[in-house]
């Protein structure tokens, strides 16, 4: 049977099932196939905080959404074109997001009376006509998988477990994805268990062949490769990119990397990743708590390491006392906050950008700390290097903001040319040489570099530079304990001046014709959503400028000028207006906030709506 092939420019697929169904793996493998095929892509995993909530229940549903296209895209897509629902709970939790007329693939085997009852379906939605608005492909995925494996010596449980590979095979056929990568992956993963490996390959092929032969699918789709910038690519998540950025920064600064960390969602993967790379001299320390995690990092920084601590909001607040000590002792330290929905425990696996004011102001006293934010999963790599540059050059703690969406989301990454990465090494001899020793041989640990206002980083083991530092106010220059009123005023202002004086690039504005009246200004992970929304509005004929802040403290020097250049400034944030508060306070510009705090990234359509509404009232 020859199937009709329909060409599409983009597709959004959402895989949904029980947390134990392996949908995340299915999604990640499909993503990898898609990446190798050459589409641009963006992903959004969405999973509960519970590791294995009761099977078949709504709280147990996890999903993985993938947007891929023949052109460059910025978001994981607002709404799916295809929903794969592995059970009634997955259907119920996700069907409201599937626009009418779109494809729905359901695993009919799981639509048993008991499973339907668990989520409150009185009748089977596949049979009662309630899904008639969608294009339903009812496939008995589990029994087809078991049947394909009946001649293999497997328990029924193991056979059923391979249904995610059957689904992956079917979807791979449907969208013409190359299968080699997945087959290689299965060999690597299950090579030592030949029967499981064989079962997964058989299930994958059975799914592929099922698509080709069944009448349930009359059309297969084609999404041509995207015209991406030439080069070598890989797919990467934000947490992996962040870990790589830290390793790279250590190499670029010629400093040993030390990570003190305590497990927390969604930051733990940075610890996991760094723990694997000891061949780069990386020391990872899983501490007894968040306070010890940052404390150990500060100790390592005192000892001359590029020191990092990673956490999420609930851990960051515990660390702030030590961040204050790093401000007072003026030691380099990187604090990574992979933000999640708060307050308190909030929604650990859901994203948010509501820790901005915590990062800027969450300490006692006048305690300025530079803050940088990553804009996309792969950009976490660059953001980590930038945080390291500021920390080491200015001898200061730096807070690096990522979030749950960036952490687990992925996108293709044009691999950087290692040789072209910035050289972060400096004259740390500035720290170890005798330049700060007075004529009488006395070392002055708080005598500053006139350009950067950084103090010497004099590490233990260096003869002649023995000194004591601490949290008590220090006399300018000598660093001796000082309670002198004027000295305190000087030190408070000097610490602030040092941070204010950090060199950061000017804010670049995307305003193609230079005639926009509205600027949309964002920071952090909203970069993709805002960019997609701005494109939409421009296609609809609106004149809109876009800019995105990497540096939240200090702000780029031209920010005030940029803000005042536009009639209106729209600031979308996944919080209640924290950047807007800063902009109003600092620049006296009446920016317009757009805020949704649902634990999810913005949808491009809602932001486009917000843009058009602002312009409609212009």
């Amino acid at each position: 049977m020859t199937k009709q092939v329909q060409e599409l420019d983009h597709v959004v697929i959402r895989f949904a099932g029980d947390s134990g169904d392996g949908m995340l793996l299915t999604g990640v493998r499909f993503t990898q196939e898609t990446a190798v095929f050459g589409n641009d892509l963006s992903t959004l995993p969405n999973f509960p905080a519970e590791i294995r909530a009761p099977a078949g229940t709504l709280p147990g549903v996890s999903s993985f959404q993938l947007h891929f296209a023949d052109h460059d895209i910025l978001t994981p897509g607002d709404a799916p074109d295809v929903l794969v629902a592995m059970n009634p709970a997955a259907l119920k939790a996700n069907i409201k997001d599937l626009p009418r007329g779109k494809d729905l693939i359901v695993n009919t085997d799981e639509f048993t009376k008991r499973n339907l009852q668990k989520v409150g379906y009185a009748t089977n939605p596949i049979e009662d006509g309630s899904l008639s608005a969608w294009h339903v492909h009812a496939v008995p995925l589990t029994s087809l998988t078991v049947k394909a494996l009946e001649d293999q010596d497997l328990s029924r449980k193991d056979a059923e477990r391979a249904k995610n590979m059957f689904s992956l095979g079917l979807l791979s056929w449907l969208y013409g994805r190359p299968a080699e990568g997945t087959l290689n992956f299965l060999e690597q993963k299950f090579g030592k268990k030949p029967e499981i490996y064989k079962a997964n390959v058989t299930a994958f092929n059975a799914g592929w062949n099922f698509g080709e032969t069944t009448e349930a699918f009359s059309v297969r789709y084609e999404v041509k490769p995207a015209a991406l910038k030439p080069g070598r690519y890989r797919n990467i998540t934000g947490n992996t990119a962040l870990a790589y950025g830290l390793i790279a920064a250590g190499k670029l600064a010629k400093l040993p990397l030390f990570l003190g960390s305590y497990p927390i969602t969604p930051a733990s993967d940075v610890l996991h990743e760094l723990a694997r790379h000891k061949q780069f001299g990386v020391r990872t320390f899983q501490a007894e708590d968040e306070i010890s995690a940052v404390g150990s990092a500060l100790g390592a920084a005192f000892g001359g390491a590029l020191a990092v601590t990673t956490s999420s909001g609930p851990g960051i607040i515990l660390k702030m006392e030590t961040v204050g000590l790093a401000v007072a002792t003026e030691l380099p330290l990187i604090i990574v906050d992979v933000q999640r929905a708060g307050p308190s425990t909030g929604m650990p696996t859901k994203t948010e950008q509501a820790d901005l004011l915590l990062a800027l102001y969450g300490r006692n006293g006048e305690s300025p700390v530079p803050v940088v934010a990553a804009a996309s999963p792969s950009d976490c790599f660059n953001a980590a290097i930038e945080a390291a540059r500021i920390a080491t050059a200015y001898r200061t703690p730096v807070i690096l903001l990522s979030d749950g969406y960036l952490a687990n989301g992925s996108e293709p990454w044009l691999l950087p040319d290692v040789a072209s990465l910035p050289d972060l090494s400096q004259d740390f001899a500035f720290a170890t040489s005798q330049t700060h020793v007075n004529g009488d041989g006395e070392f002055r640990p708080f005598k500053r570099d006139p350009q950067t206002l950084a103090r010497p980083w004099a590490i233990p083991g260096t003869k002649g530079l023995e000194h004591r530092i601490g949290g008590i106010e220090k006399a300018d220059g000598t660093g001796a304990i000082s309670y002198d009123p004027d000295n305190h005023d000087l030190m408070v202002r000097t610490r602030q001046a040092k941070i204010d004086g950090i060199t950061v690039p000017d804010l670049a504005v995307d305003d193609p014709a230079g005639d926009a009246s509205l600027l949309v200004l964002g920071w952090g992970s909203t970069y993709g959503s805002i960019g997609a929304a701005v494109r939409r509005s421009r296609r609809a004929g609106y004149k809109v400028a876009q800019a995105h802040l990497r540096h939240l403290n200090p702000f780029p020097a031209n920010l005030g000028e940029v803000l005042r250049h536009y009639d209106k400034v729209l600031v979308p944030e996944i919080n209640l207006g924290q950047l807007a508060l800063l902009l109003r306070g600092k620049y006296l510009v009446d920016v317009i906030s757009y805020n949704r705090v649902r634990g999810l990234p913005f949808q491009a359509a809602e932001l486009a709506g917000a843009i058009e509404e602002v312009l409609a009232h212009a």
Partner: protein
Amino acid sequence: MPDALGTPNSRLESLTLVPHATGLAAKDFKSDQEVRWCPGCGDYAILAAFQAFLPTLEVPRENIVVVSGIGCSSRLPYYVNSYGMHSIHGRAPAIATGLAASRPDLSVWVITGDGDALSIGGNHLIHALRRNVNIKILLFNNRIYGLTKGQYSPTSEQGKVTKSTPFGSLDYPFNPVSLALGAEASFVARSVDSDRKHLQSVLTAAADHQGAAFIEIFQNCPIFNDDAFAPIKEPSAPGLIRLIHGQPVRFGPNGSLGLVQGPYGSLQAVEADAVPEPELIVHDVTRDDPSYAFALSRLDSSDFSHTPIGVFRSVPRQSYDSLMAAQLEQAQAGGDGDLATLLAGNDTWHVG
């Protein structure tokens, strides 16, 4: 290992990675800062003993780091001319852990107090001890909060009347030695501020230990808890039990008392002449099972009728930092990691 009261005749085992220096004297470890404790404070004696002890390490000044928390005792790093950090309340063991784990060439000392180590910093203390990081923790125990002007501490006796407990404190105190033993410490000792010779011998034994060492130092606060340790301040105090490795435990008038096994693993004081000699306990710091050292620590009583001092326990266990260094060394045996290879990973594709 050296006798707990002896001096090692070779270089200390825990300092093999630390550079060597000779010819230093106590005065070399005095900083230019004016010492600002209250007159009569026990901290003066401990500081002087510490400064006089440091040259015996034969470590260059620049390779010694003293880290402290917050409290009266935690001001000590300012007065020692080495590298030092006066950090935040309770966190010194955490900071010292990061430093020692990444710099095996340093000799790292933690100065803390009963409030700092046992109240706000209790978690860091127990985990540093169990990990066996190569740091030496000196806990100055004066059984009171001095810097905040006299509130009861986690080692104050129950019923302590202070500004914050005008009707007497309600909570039961910690026994720091018992706590350290329960936290899997590989080296636990106790000394007294006023007995310089004893204190220095314990410091030497701690320095010689590979891994975390915990030393409780009874320290008098003349302002808020004066004479808290008066009953054992005399060298011949009857309740003072001087523990000497390899020797029978003898104390009391003319050393007439000894220790024997009691019920349920406890130890009991007896007239030594009244029991056959083989039944008398001979002190052994190297017992792997901490029960014996724990039983010794439980001899303590609020009236100081039995107060052991000296090294309770000193057993070999690989230190955290040396294990970490070994993992790194193994990973780097085939050369340093290549950044471009790391970034590319296993699944790449070409465009254009």
